[in-house]
């Protein structure tokens, strides 16, 4: 019996879909749904739509399960599926499809690179939740909203130096926990 979704092989996954094994299906969902959400978000740049793409993929896997054969690596199979769905959704809504998404070659090198990148993002999201509220707010305004430090300072009515200080606190926190970084002076 496999309990950890990350170690489910393609054959086990195919069999689970065929026999509608809800336990295995749930393990796969728990293991990969967040990464798939991040990957979908990378292509569609819209968190609601990204979630919809992921839920749509799993609904499809469940409903068409008996007709689906998963080959190779389960994670890579899901990455390809979610990328295709993202592109289709963008086209369907007549939204712009980035060159990057279209050019994305699902070869093993880019799959491994993107896996590392998504796992890093997954950790970043978790660690950002640990930041003090003000620090998190400033970090998100900079990173997510793409505001310049001066714009953040003006928006929040604080000194630009405070913005730099808080951004540095956030970045050090990430580095200390993620890259085994030594504590910075």
């Amino acid at each position: 019996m496999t309990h950890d979704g990350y170690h489910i092989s393609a054959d086990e996954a195919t069999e689970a879909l065929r026999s509608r094994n809800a336990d295995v299906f749930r393990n796969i969902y728990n293991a990969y749904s967040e990464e798939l959400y991040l990957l979908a978000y990378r292509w569609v740049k819209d968190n609601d739509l990204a979630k919809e793409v992921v839920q749509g993929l799993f609904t499809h896997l469940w409903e068409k399960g008996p007709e689906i054969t998963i080959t190779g690596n389960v994670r890579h199979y899901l990455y390809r599926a979610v990328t295709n769905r993202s592109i289709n959704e963008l086209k369907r809504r007549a939204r712009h499809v980035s060159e990057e998404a279209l050019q994305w070659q699902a070869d093993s090198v880019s799959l491994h690179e993107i896996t590392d990148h998504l796992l890093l993002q997954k950790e970043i999201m978790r660690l950002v939740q640990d930041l003090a509220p003000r620090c998190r707010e400033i970090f998100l305004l900079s990173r997510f909203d793409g505001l310049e430090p001066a714009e953040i300072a003006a928006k929040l009515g604080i000194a630009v130096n405070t913005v730099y200080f808080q951004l540095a606190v956030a970045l050090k926190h990430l580095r200390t926990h993620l890259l085994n970084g030594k504590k910075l002076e």
Partner: protein
Amino acid sequence: MNNKDVTEFVIDCLTDTGNKDKQAALNQWLQKSEDNRALYAELKQLWEAAAAVPPVPFDSEQGWNELLQIIAEETPVKRMFPWKTVAAAVLLLLLGTGIWWWQTTAVRWTIYIAQAANRDSLSLPDGSLVYLKPGTTLKYKQPFSDRTVVLLSGEAYFDVKKAAEHTFFVQAGDAVVRVLGTAFNVRIEQNRTEVIVFEGKISLQQNGQQLVLSSGDGNKGTVDAAGGEILHPQGDYSNQCVWATDDLSFENEEAAHVAKVIADYYKIPALKIPENLKHKRITLHLHNTPAEQAMEILATVLDE
């Protein structure tokens, strides 16, 4: 930059790439040591990775619960015949009551996936009760007027409410169980479906074949997926329903066998039965009995 924090300095450079003075200072600093270059690379990687992160984290627990809803709602709704759709549309145009007609004829499947760690239970709209082993999935139509449950995987025990005018059906793979009001267990395995009647009587059907099963001796029927005959082994298999019924019954059975079934059920080590008593035939009935009490009862019966 000596009196400025290194990270702040790097952020300053990353957020102001157009400033030549800052970029020059950065280059100078990078050339000083390998450590500086490594540190810069790490901070830049994190800075850029964070920029592409969605604003809202993904809650997979919540996502899973929502997924169950989506699956239940989107599972193929029984298609109405085209003329019915047309009729419904016409009614909708002509009468306000058309909406009511439409709603009552729109059939929706509900999918249920057993989630509990040991045993899950579900009340069907007709008052019948189902116990499910973990991971078991089934579906049924809403409204439940046809009293039909489709077992998709796993094992379930049905305690069917009596309603003489409405037969209750369980569809499991190729097998169909037809009942009037009884309790029975259905298990889908890779290549076969097994049905055990705990109480009352059912009819097991497959590809035109039929087998009537009653509780007690000969209460099990097996249908194999290859479409062979329905098998009807001898013996009373009621105790295989114990996971749902908490009910163990032994009628004139060997002590060694009884001890083994009891040990399996209570998940305790095998019980030692004295050699001279192993083949002693005993009859006993346990219902919802705690382990210690069950041991005492067994010991008493053995001593009789």
